[in-house]
């Protein structure tokens, strides 16, 4: 049986496990017994049999040995934690600085985690959200090759897809009303903001839970409405809303057929009221491919490749309206956007709600990582700087037989203790700051969003990670002490402190980058708010209402009040969405057609808003033929239409795709920033069209605004009995365009304050320890004749040099980052050297403050006392 050279030996893996499991016998004799018996068994009953026996032994041994091992580890861990706790209690200021620093950074980490998961969770709650796509389109002008991508698609697209594409499980089109709608319910009226006019397929594509009514037929009949639960509670109180009638705009009756749950905060599609297409659609050209008024969403059948489907519908418009598109000089291409990526990934014109900003999210995440890094650096520095206080303990532990791995484990346990104390503190901090943070982030978040099992696990993971990152270097460093040297009382100054200084430099460099970043963002926001927009926006009150028939009389009436300096009626006001229509020259010069923003205004609009006319003239009130049949266009439109100069465009005729009307260009207005400074100035056409007058812009005199407002509201209520007065100041309205920047700035400012605080905290802790270590040296220097000033210079010089280095490193980095950030703005403020200098000076001052008090105390101390120290 025993062939030479091929003696059976125990299975390797089992033997390896056995060796781990067996008692710590230096000679491993039991393993030898097992092997010998294995051989006997193999000889007697075969190798297979003995292998099974060997494995059986190992497996039977495992549970008891493992639980035993864990038991003793836990006892040791408990001891480490107890000792760690005593050390913290014995060094309260050290404990406070490190734990507070970690807690602040963990709080930032928590907030980042919450906002990240929230932003990434958008629209994932719909069943089959992976199969739902939005169909958006690009419109390319064949002559000028300008492209425009819009979130809305041609109106007949959804029914066409339903009818002709077998890949489509369901498709829906809906429109979002731009203006708030006022609604009469019995004898009350109310305004609602978020109104969708939708097909019933909405409920097939999206998962919208019904409280009352049925998703199958809620919006199939004409004149039906579905309301959200909160709207029902607000306006119907305890009554049953189903079957009741809402008078939309006071005249159109809609029967409530269902109540649905409110759309969650992480939905990009938010609504309070859903109305059936019919009868609103009776006035709309629902078969017009050129009207891109509807959002179109499709749910594909399972297992289909969206890319293949997308390529099949890209040119679908050509199947139906190829000649018209040729005539308009346009090319339509449809494309798919996965539902889940719309919130962060889609930045088209006419988004349903302002999309999330992935860049801001990335910056926030990066800043969070940096803040965590700063706190970890602090921790490492403090541990190393204080190492002398632990040296004796470590030496004694080693002398009585502690192994290095055991010491490392002990220090890591201590660090984790601190990290978890910090986590507990940070949860308290989070609860305190979360409401404010949610407000800044523009999201509905509560502490309940933090206290979810998944996120708690994430936080514990983060804490473990931070604890490990902070603890591993100090643990290796401290456990490396040579007991003999320490116990003999050799030099107790921490060795290799270059690392500590490097870390201080990095910390301050990060702080400097943050400060410069904030200053540049602030400058850009100020730039956008103060910039000359090409029109006046100060003291302009925009009043919503119905002024279609009586605009002139209302204006004349209001202007009798001397506090109202000017008035103009229009549909659009700068800063709000404008509708876009196709416009085309009819002079035959070219086939150029172009989507343009249309403003319906009265003749007072141009002078009231202080818009300059560069060629031709404005509409004339006494020339009634100016209504509808004439246009004033901006300089961008002159260019887009292919005229060489503004003068050349005068008298030319323009065809407009909405009504199919043709009119003459009578004037050219200077470009003004009607969409805010993030965007380039697009072509704009002004038309005198009273049929759309739903806004009145009043220029007010500054003194006594409340009285003027009350006066306007009184007059308005006389004109619109039973309705709700709604007015906003244009500049505030307009600054809302910069809301995203504004909020980001405020959020970022908080992050900066935290980063700088943590860096300063670190410097305070580090300098206090290092100066304490140099007490004797300072004493000797002073006895030998050094002045207090010289000692101060010596001590603070080190730190100041680090901070200067940090500035030198940070400036180019900050410059690069901020340039990239500013790229996104069509109009941007210059990067100013002053911002960099300010960041430099403030960090130097901060560093001086942080180390100053201790330096001064140490330098001014009586040398006799200092030398006696220790």
């Amino acid at each position, binding site marked *: 049986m025993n062939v030479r050279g091929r003696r059976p*030996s*125990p299975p390797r893996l089992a*033997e390896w496990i056995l060796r781990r499991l067996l008692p710590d016998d230096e*000679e*491993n*004799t*039991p*393993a*030898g*017994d*097992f*092997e*010998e*018996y294995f*051989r*006997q068994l193999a000889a007697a009953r075969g190798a297979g049999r003995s292998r099974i026996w060997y494995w059986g*032994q190992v497996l*039977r*041994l495992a549970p008891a040995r493992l639980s035993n091992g864990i038991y003793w580890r836990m006892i040791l861990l408990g001891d480490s934690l107890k000792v760690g706790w005593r050390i913290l209690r014995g060094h309260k200021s050290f404990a406070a600085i490190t734990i507070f620093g970690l807690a602040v950074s963990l709080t930032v980490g928590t907030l980042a985690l919450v906002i990240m998961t929230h932003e990434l969770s958008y629209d994932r709650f719909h069943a089959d959200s992976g199969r739902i796509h939005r169909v958006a389109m690009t419109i390319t002008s064949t002559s000028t090759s300008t492209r425009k991508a819009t979130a809305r698609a041609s109106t007949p697209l959804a029914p066409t897809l339903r009818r002709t594409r077998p890949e489509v499980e369901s498709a829906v089109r809906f429109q979002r009303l731009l203006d708030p709608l006022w609604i009469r319910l019995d004898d009350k009226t109310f305004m609602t903001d978020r109104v969708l006019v939708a097909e019933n397929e909405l409920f097939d594509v999206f998962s919208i839970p019904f409280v009352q009514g049925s998703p199958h037929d809620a919006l199939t009949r004409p004149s039906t409405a579905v309301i959200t639960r909160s709207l029902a509670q607000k306006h119907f109180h305890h009554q049953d809303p189903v079957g009741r009638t809402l008078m939309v705009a006071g005249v159109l009756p809609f029967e409530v057929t269902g109540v649905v749950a409110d759309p969650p905060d992480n939905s990009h599609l938010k609504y309070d009221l859903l109305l059936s297409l019919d009868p609103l659609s009776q006035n709309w050209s629902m078969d017009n491919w050129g009207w891109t008024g509807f959002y179109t969403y499709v749910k594909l059948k399972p297992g289909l490749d969206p890319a293949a489907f997308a390529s099949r519908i890209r040119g679908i418009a050509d199947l139906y309206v190829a000649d018209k598109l040729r005539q308009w000089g346009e090319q339509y291409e449809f494309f798919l956007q996965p539902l889940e990526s719309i919130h962060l990934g889609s930045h088209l014109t006419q988004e349903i709600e302002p999309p999330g900003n992935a860049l801001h999210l990335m910056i926030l995440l990066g800043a969070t990582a940096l803040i965590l890094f700063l706190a970890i650096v602090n921790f490492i520095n403090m541990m190393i700087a204080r190492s002398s206080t632990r040296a004796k303990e470590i030496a004694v532990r080693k002398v009585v037989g502690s192994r290095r791995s055991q010491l490392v484990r002990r220090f890591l346990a201590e660090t984790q203790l601190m990290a978890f104390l910090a986590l507990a503190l940070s949860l308290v901090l989070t609860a305190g700051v979360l409401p404010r943070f949610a407000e800044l982030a523009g999201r509905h978040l509560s502490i309940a969003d933090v206290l979810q099992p998944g996120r708690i696990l994430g936080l514990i993971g983060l804490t473990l990670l931070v604890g490990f990152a902070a603890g591993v270097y100090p643990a290796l460093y401290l456990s490396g002490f040579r007991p003999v040297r320490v116990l003999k009382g050799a030099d107790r100054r921490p060795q290799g402190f270059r690392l500590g200084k490097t870390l201080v430099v990095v910390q301050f460099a990060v702080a400097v980058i943050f400060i410069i970043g904030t200053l540049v963002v602030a400058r850009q926001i100020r730039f956008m708010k103060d910039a000359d927009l090409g029109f006046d926006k100060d003291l302009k009150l925009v009043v919503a209402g119905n002024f279609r028939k009586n605009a002139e009389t209302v204006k004349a009436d209001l202007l009798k009040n001397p506090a109202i300096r000017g008035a103009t009626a229009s549909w659009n006001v700068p800063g709000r969405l404008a509708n876009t229509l196709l416009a085309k020259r009819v002079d035959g010069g070219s086939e150029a057609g172009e989507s343009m923003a249309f403003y319906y205004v009265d003749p007072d609009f141009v002078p009231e808003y202080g818009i300059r006319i560069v060629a031709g003239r404005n509409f004339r009130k006494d020339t009634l033929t100016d209504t509808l049949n004439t246009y004033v266009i901006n300089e961008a439109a002159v260019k887009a239409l292919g005229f060489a100069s503004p003068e050349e465009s005068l008298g030319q005729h323009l065809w407009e795709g909405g009504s199919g009307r043709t009119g003459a260009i009578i004037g050219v207005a200077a470009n003004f920033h009607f969409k805010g400074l993030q965007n380039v100035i697009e072509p704009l056409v002004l038309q005198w069209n009273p049929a759309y007058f739903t806004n009145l812009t009043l220029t007010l005199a500054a003194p006594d605004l409340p009285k003027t407002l009350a006066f306007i509201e009184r007059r308005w209520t006389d004109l619109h009995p039973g309705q709700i007065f709604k007015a906003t100041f244009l500049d505030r309205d307009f600054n809302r365009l910069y809301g995203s920047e504004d909020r980001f700035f405020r959020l970022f400012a908080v992050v900066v304050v935290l980063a700088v605080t943590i860096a300063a905290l670190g410097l305070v802790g580090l300098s206090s320890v290092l100066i304490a270590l140099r007490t004797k040296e300072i004493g000797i220097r002073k006895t030998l004749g050094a002045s207090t000033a010289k000692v101060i210079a010596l001590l603070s010089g080190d730190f100041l040099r680090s901070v200067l280095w940090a500035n030198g490193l940070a400036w180019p980095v900050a410059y690069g980052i901020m340039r990239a950030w500013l790229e996104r703005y069509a109009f941007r403020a210059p990067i100013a050297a002053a911002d960099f200098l300010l960041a430099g000076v403030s960090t130097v001052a901060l560093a001086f403050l942080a180390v100053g008090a201790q330096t001064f105390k140490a330098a001014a101390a009586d040398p006799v006392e200092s030398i006696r120290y220790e």
Partner: protein
Amino acid sequence: MKLMTRAEELILLAVWRLKDNAYCIPLRTQICDITGEAWSLGSIYMPLDRLVKRGLLDSYLTEATPERGGRRKRVYRLTEEGLRRLREMEDIGKRMWEGIPNLSEER
């Protein structure tokens, strides 16, 4: 004085009989042979450990051998106390059996 278990008694006897070869494997083989039952290695280790702890046995290490994967043996031997207790057990056994007629002839 606590009485030892039967297993401990058997192991002490086996150690005494095997002398210089009294390590785990032969111990087990002998006990299996005499009792006719399969004893696991673990059921030998446990009483061995207890006996060492109580000072009835001590042990020494021998040279490594190849069939043990190059590991040394731990060979056990009786201590003075062990020998004394073994005699005591013999004595107790004898006294318990005294006056009992031959069991195999009983019927």
